[in-house]
Every structure is written in structure tokens, then in C-alpha cells.
């Protein structure tokens, strides 16, 4: 395995969940650093410089949101929120504070691991110039602006490429609607969710096997969209 040992910082006050996460992540060959308090979390983050932060929102000495904001102030490291807060406004608040993804408790280990992989890949991919997305049998080269399906080339508009680029930059993670609009259309279009919906629908029609049951361009209701390219 060529993968370097990634280091994951788990900020979680419940010892039972820390145990489960440690067993799960260690078994997947990650190194795990733990913190149970908000204050401790920042010290660990600064001293260990982990590759990924998993943070609970309800901490005994403060709010996880504060941890996210403080870390985000000095580091671009991927942050996954792991919380029992399930309401949409709470998720939005966490994403706005700088989190990249949100997993609600109770979580399934398979799902959490998939998100962790996606988050770590993003850290690598974002520097890669020649990203290639795979949607089932379709392959899209963002750098060369080329898309190929089983039956030959697929035509995508420049706008659709820009939306895909924006999603690919945060591949596997939630991208807020406003962020997509800003990155693909420019600041003038913020709030125009109709254009965005239309564009996503076109992309699904062109790239998804069943546009009604998208597997790659996934809607996160009330939050935004998530790109899930086929894993190798």
C-alpha cells in the first residue's frame, strides 16, 4: 500500500464513541489522536498537524463550531463534523463555520469511512492539475474539458464544466448552493437556485445512468450537492 499513514484528530467527549472511532480508524490504518475538550482539541491540532479533523459539536467546555472556526483560521485541513444534531440549520451553521462534511450520529462505520477517504483524497486531489472524474462508464477530464462515455464523446457546456470543477474541488463532500453559484456563475448569481437546479439536471441527464436516481451528483436536501465519483 502506497498510502502514507494519515493522521486523524478525533474531538469527542464521549469515551464510548472515541473507543469505537479509534478501533475503526486504526483498523483502516490511520493514526488516531484524541481530544475530549474544545481547548485540548486546538492544542492537539497545532502540535500534531493532523491530516483530518473529526469533531463533535457538543463539547463540555465549548461548542465544536468554535473549534472549527479556530482551526479554519490557520489551516485548510479537511474537517468532518460528527454530531447528534440533525436539524438542517445546525448543519448549515457547521458548514458555514468551515466544516467540509457532516455525519450524523448514530453513524454507520462504512459511511464514516467513505467520508474520511473522500476528505483525505480531496486534500491530495486539489493539488493535482489533471483530475479525471469517473462516473460509472463515463470519464471526464476537467483539465482538457473532455468527457467520454461508452458510446463516444459527451458534450458538456463550459458552465457545466465549471460546476463539475467546483464540485470536484470538494469531491465527496457537501458543496453549498451559494458556493457553487459563486464559483461557477460569479457573485452576481447568488440566490438564483433555479439556474443551478437546471444545470444539475442537465448534468445528470448526460452523465448519470438513471437521472432520476443519481448516484454521483447527489442532492443534500437543503444544504447543497455532493459529488461521488466511482471509487477505484
Amino acid at each position, binding site marked *: 500500500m502506497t498510502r502514507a499513514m494519515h493522521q486523524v484528530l478525533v474531538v469527542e467527549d464521549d469515551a464510548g464513541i472515541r473507543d469505537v472511532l479509534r478501533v475503526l480508524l486504526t483498523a483502516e490504518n490511520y493514526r488516531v489522536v484524541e481530544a475530549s475538550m474544545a481547548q485540548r482539541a486546538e492544542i492537539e491540532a497545532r502540535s500534531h498537524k493532523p491530516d483530518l479533523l473529526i469533531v463533535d459539536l457538543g463539547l463540555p467546555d465549548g461548542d465544536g463550531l468554535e473549534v472549527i472556526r479556530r482551526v479554519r483560521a490557520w489551516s485548510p485541513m479537511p474537517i468532518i463534523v460528527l454530531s447528534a444534531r440533525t436539524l438542517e440549520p445546525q448543519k448549515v451553521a457547521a458548514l458555514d463555520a468551515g466544516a467540509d462534511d457532516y455525519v450524523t450520529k*448514530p453513524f*454507520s462505520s462504512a459511511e464514516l469511512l467513505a467520508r474520511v477517504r473522500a476528505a483525505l483524497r480531496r486534500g491530495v486531489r486539489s493539488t493535482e492539475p489533471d483530475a479525471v472524474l469517473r462516473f460509472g462508464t463515463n470519464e471526464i477530464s476537467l483539465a482538457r474539458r473532455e468527457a467520454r462515455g461508452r458510446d463516444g464523446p459527451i458534450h458538456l457546456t463550459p458552465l457545466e464544466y465549471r460546476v463539475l470543477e467546483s464540485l470536484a474541488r470538494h469531491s465527496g463532500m457537501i458543496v453549498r448552493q451559494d458556493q457553487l453559484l459563486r464559483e461557477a456563475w460569479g457573485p452576481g448569481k447568488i440566490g438564483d437556485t433555479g439556474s443551478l437546479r437546471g444545470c444539475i439536471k442537465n448534468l445528470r441527464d448526460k452523465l448519470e445512468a438513471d437521472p*432520476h*436516481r*443519481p448516484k454521483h451528483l*447527489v442532492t443534500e436536501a437543503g444544504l447543497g450537492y455532493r459529488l461521488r465519483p466511482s471509487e477505484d
Partner: protein
Amino acid sequence: MMVETRPDPDELLARVKAEEARARRGKLRIFFGATAGVGKTFGMLAAARAVRAAGTDVVIGYIEPHGRAETERLMESLERLPTLPIDYRGIVRHEFDLDAALARRPAILLVDELAHSNLLGGEPTPRHPKRWQDIEELLEAGINVWTTVNVQHLESLNDLVAQITGVKQRETVPDRIFDEADEVELIDLPPDDLLGRLKAGKVYLPEDVGRAVDRFFRLPNLIALRELALRRMTSRVEAAARVSLAGDVTSREWLARENLIVAIGPDAQAEQLVRAGKRMADALNADWMVVYVETPWLQRLSEKERDRRIDLLKLAESLGAETVTLSGPTAAAALVEYAQTRKATRVIVGAPKRRGVRALLRRSTATELTRLARGFDVVTIAAAEPRGAGAAPEAARGAVIDVAQPVHVRRYTWAVAVSFGCTVIAAVMYPFFELENLVMVYLLGVTVSGLRLGRRPSALTAVLNVVLFDFFFVPPRFRFAVSDVQYVVTFGVMLTVALVIANLVASVRQQTRVAGARERRTALLYAMSRELAGTRGSGSMARVAVKHVAEVFQCSVVVLFPGGDGRLRYPRGEAPSENAFRGADLAVAQWVMDHGRRAGLGSDTLPAAPALYLPLSTSTETVGVLAVLPNNPRRVLLPEQRHLLETFAGQLALALERARLAETAESARISAEAESVRNTLLASISHDLRTPLAVMAGAASTLAERGGALDAKTRLTLARSIETKAREMSELVSNVLDLMRLDSGQIVLRRDWQSLDDLVGAALHQHEAQLAAHPVEVRLPNDLPAVHVDPALVVQVFGNLFDNAAKYTPPGTRIYVSATPDGEFVRVMVDDDGPGLPPGDPALLFEKFRRGAPEGTVVGAGLGLAICRAIVLAHGGTITAQQRPTRGARFELTLPVTEPEA
């Protein structure tokens, strides 16, 4: 014979309420005398000193000492409120300060001269025109008041005193104040002693009496006034006795209750009738009402004369009568009908005034009424000797001509034109027709004239027709002479028929107009009631009322509601309407709100204000104030207009009360429902949580203790069962939490435009694992409009529906999702071709803790559909379950494609 002697419960209730109101009110004690100078003020002060000595907090609000030493001495030891300087036409007068008294709140307040009129034109403007109104407000504020009044100031005796003494008192007090006083103390001084005091200069004489002092203070006058005062006092004592009798169950007094109706017209006798009615009602202890009948004949009176009704009806109201304006073809018919519906025992009318031929031609109201009366007596009151007041009708008559002239000249011109028109037609016909047929043309002309021009102009046409007919057609032509005597008969009949036709037709026309006006009023009221009935929320109701009132009364309107602190405030955040009344006096409105009585223009309180403020009173409280600024004050001041306006206000108040009651009932229903849900919840949770917990605990402990001894496959089975049960529990818990949040209204919809594709896709993606064994076919049309919904919640609806389909149908069952636009909604169908719905009412599936399968076989259900329903209803949509015609179940829901109105 059995006689029902149980008192009327309504009456008992009314008495209990009146007593309650009285207990909260301050007590009024009146020192009552026959004339000035009997020592009322002195008596009041002496009594005040006595209670002051006993330690009671007595304060002098206002007493005019008139420089009398003995009065001054009595006042010395008592606390006095400072007087309020009022600038009245350049002169500073010192008046009673109502607000200072309200602020001081003594146990007993002395205020002299109950009948005093405040200086309305002064600066600052007093709140009420009359002192008795100030005192009413003090009493309502719970302050006990002592005051003084003379018998000649009592409203109902006012005209009698004027007849006795020849001096008319302008300052009067409604009898109600006197009758409702808690204590009346008669200060009696024999006339001889009074005259002695007068000679000794011990009596201060008010200005108006001062001039007529010789006429006023004559022994016969004083004896008569003393008798009046004593009689009034006696009747008060009798009334008190009767009240206590009414409380006695064995008394049957109340069975024979009298009910008086006083019928008035616009003539000079009306005022006398009203006062006579009051005296009779008092003597009989009866309810009484004053009725004005608007007949076609009365509609032709000048506006000025009709306006006298305002004053008459106001007078009647101030004397405690209920006032009603009726309309009908004749006064007698309307009165009989009304008297019978109100079960009147006596109807009081003025004696017939027509004499001679007119009396023969038209029966007077009194005569007609006597003829028609069934079940009530008719009392006729002879006209009082015309005394000074005789000038008023003359002046009014003058006004008729003034006002009517410009209109009538044109009508009479038309009447003449009609006659000449008929003559022209007749002239054309003359060579070919007999004279009798020409008469017909003239009769037709009279009919047209009657229809269009009214009674008198058409009478002119009738007369003119005869003249023209004679001149132009009857031989010898072009002369007024008549050759054949038989034409005289023709003229006679022609004139009579023409006049009768003119009269009848004009009458019909008038009646149509009266009926039309009444119908319009009813229609207006109905229009507003109907729109109010279809309106929810007090703000919207107020807007509806403003629109209608502004339209009907040609005025600016605003409805003011109190804020949380009980202070009235202007409605905020409303689109400015052209009819909105800006600049209403909030202080006046607040007074109306607090007292539940109208104020401003034309009312008893602040009558000089430009706007009228009406309380919106329900049976229990005042919910707001309707402020009206008329473009033309007349429109609001006419009695029928004011009654109509009050009816509008009443309708609005009723509607507001209805809205409030509905809210209360709704919240009661919700809390009852919440209670039952809580109980079901507890029962269900204890089952649905314990079962998976038992599995988990068992499996986990087996793994912990025997893990080593088990083979890998068994260990995996146990671990998987823990995982499954944990997921079920988690699902149940989040369902319970969601439902509680939805039910408690904690969830605010975060609506946005969404494509149905997206929402269904997201739900399918989330439930991929559960749907592994159930192929899903999504058939959504491409041109479906975007829906305006909260995406996360609607995804949850679809997720629950998919989940249900997966749970209650065997593996391999297909699920279909389809949709069609439907007006302001999109109709979405989630179908399956499984075994279909369980037997029973499908609507019950959406109740909490309903299961498609018997308890135990499938866990974690029971809330899913209830959540779906709560979410869809919150969006204004509907959700139903039904059996598909072929096979399987269909869940159908609607989602809005429009933004909800703010």
C-alpha cells in the same frame, strides 16, 4: 292554579352583574334640593367634616363658596384639590381638575353642582362637556363622590319646572345618574324659611336665575318645586322598594312588566312626548323606547328639520330610553308591527293635530294607531301650550322653502313641460280621435309626471292638463268657456283621477326610495359580514372593515388594537391605503378603549374632536377602537348613519371575538390532542424501545462472555443483530423527536424552489440500502414546475414512503413514482404493486402509532406516515392513501408550486 313564579334567570343575572359593577364602582351620594339656597353645599360639607373626624380621606374636588362665610369656615379644615385654570375666550376661569382628582384618588371626593357644564371652548379643552360625565369617570375609577343638584336640573322634570317657573334651565342631568346614585339625601327647607334667608342675603343666586329672581322665588313656585323634589324623592324610594321586591321569589310583580314605546315625529311636540314617556316609564318602573318612523312623507322634510331627530333621539338616550328608527309606508303600520314584536304594553303618541277637512281626508297617526292596536294601549298626549318654543317650527318651515326651492323650480318647470307635451300630442291626434281619447293622453302625462317628479309637481300637471284641455280642445276652442255642461263632469273626473294617480304613483316612488335605501344599508352590512366571515386574523379583518366603512361613510378609517402593554398603537407594516386615517388621537382612542364608550365627534365625550372613536366591544371586553374621520361630518352624525356605523363596529367586534374564540378552541383542542398523544407515545415507546434493547443486551452479553467459544459466523450474526436493532431504535427515536418538533410548531419551514426530481433522487439515495430489494421506477414529466417547499422535510416524506413500501411489501415488489401538475400544486403518486393497504379506513394509517401490520412483526413503524402528514399539511398540501385499482397501494400527496401569501 299553578303559577310560574320563578324569576327570569336573565333578569337575575343582569341584577347580579349590575351589583358586581356597582361594587367595583365608587359610590355616588347626592345632596338634593328643591332650589338654590336650601343649604345643599352646607349640608354636604357638614357631613364631610363628620366623616373626616372619623378618619376618612375626604378631599374637596371643587366647591364654589360664593363668598359665604359659613361655607368658607366649613371648608377650612378639609383638603382641597387645586383648581384648573382654563382660558375661556380671554378670561381665565377656575374649573374642577378631573385628572388631578383621578391622580389623588381620595376615599371621598366632594364636587359641587352636578349639573354644571364644562367650558368646552376653553383651553385646555375639558374631556367631557358635562360635570356629571366627569363624575361618572371618577366613579368608574372607584372613587366615591359626593355632589349636589337641584330638582330643576333633572332632565325629565326640566320642562315641568320651566312651565311652573317660566325659567328654562339649560344645564340638565340625565335621570339615570340620579336614579343610580347609591344615596340621595334630600335637603329640605320650608319655602318661608328660604325666602327669609333670601332676604337676609344668605343665598347666592346663579346668573341665569338672578335676572328672573322675582319671578322665580315666588312662594307658589317654591311650594311647587318643593313638592316636585319630594315627589321625585318618593318615587326613588319606591323604586328601591320595587328592586328588593323583584329579588323576592314570591313576588309576582315582575310578571306584569310594562313596556313603553314613545312614537315621535319631527314636530314640536316630540320633546314633550319624550319627557312624558320618561315620567310614565319611571312611574311604572317600565322599560321604554323612543321610536321615530321614517315614512315616505317624512322623507320629504327639509334636511334641517330631519336633523332635529338627532337631538330628540339623543335626549331620549340620555333619559335612558332605547332609540330606534323604523321605516314603513305609514307610521301607524310600522308602529303596530314593532310594538307587537317588542311586546309593548303601551304606545305613547301625540294627540292628532290636523283639524277640519285635512283631518277628514287623512287619518292622523294617533287615530290610525288606535284603530289598529292589538295587545297594547295607545296613550295620546295633548300638546302643551305653545310657550316660547312656538317659534322653532316656524323657523324650520322657513328652512323647508330655502332648501327645497332650487330643486323644485326645476321640477315644476318639467311638470309644465309635460302638460304642454301632452297638448302637442293631443293636437296631432285631434283631427283623428274623439276627445275622450285625448283625455287619456293627459292622464298618461300625469302618470309620467308622478313617477318622475313627485307629488306636488304632478298635481300641477293634473291641474294644468285640465286647463289646457279645456282651452285647446273643448268647444268652443281657444277659449276657456264651455259650451256643453257635460264637459264640466269630464273636467271633474279628469282632475280627480289625475290627482289620485299622481298621488299614488308619487307614493310608490317614495316608498321604493325608502325601501331602496334600507336595502342598500342591509346589503352593505351583509357585504362586510360576508367578507369578514371569510377572513382570518384580526389584522386582515381590520383591513376588510376599513375598506367597507371608508366606502360606505366616505371617510378615513383606522382600526387600532392594543399592544402587549394594553396601549393602543397604529398598525405597522401595512401597505398604505388611501382610506387609512392617519393622525388619529391615540389619547382619545385609549380613553375609548379603557372605558368602552364612544368619544369624539357628536358623542358625549370630546364632541368637538374632528373624528369619531367607537369601541369594538364584545360581550366580555373591548378589543380595539374604530376611528373614523368623516369627509363630511353630517354623514356620521345623522342618526341612521351613526347607528349603521355602530352596527358596522359591532359586526367587526363580533368577527374579532369569533376569531379569538376560534383560536382558544383550537389551542384547547391541540392541548387535548397533545395529551392523548403523550399517553400513546409512552405506551408505544416502552414496547418499541424495550424489544430492540433486549436483543442488543442479550447479543452483546453473549459476545462478551462466550465470544471465544463461538464460531466466527455466529459472532457475526450476533453483531449484525445488534447493528440492526440499534438502527431501528435510532430511527424510532428520531421519528419521535421529529414528530414532537412538528407538532409543537417548533419547525419553521425553510422553503425554497426545488425540483421534484432532486427531492425524489435525494430520498432514493438516502434509502438505497433499504430499497436494495425493491426496484424503483421514477416517471416524472420533464415540464413539471418547481415546488416551493422545505427540501429536507419533503425528502423525509419521500424517504418514509419508500421505507414503508420496502417494509410492508415482499422483496421484488416494484415501486413507482409519478407526478402531474394540478393547479397551484403538483400531485405526486408513490405506488407499489404489493399486497395493498390493510383493511380499514386508509385515513387512520396517518394517525400516530398505526401500523400496517400487527404489532411486533415490523418494528419502528407507526410514526412514519404521521410525520409525512404533518409535513405535507405544514406545506398546505394533502396526503391520502388508497388501494390501487389493479394491485397494491397508492400514496398521493400534493406540494405547492406557489409561494404562500405572507
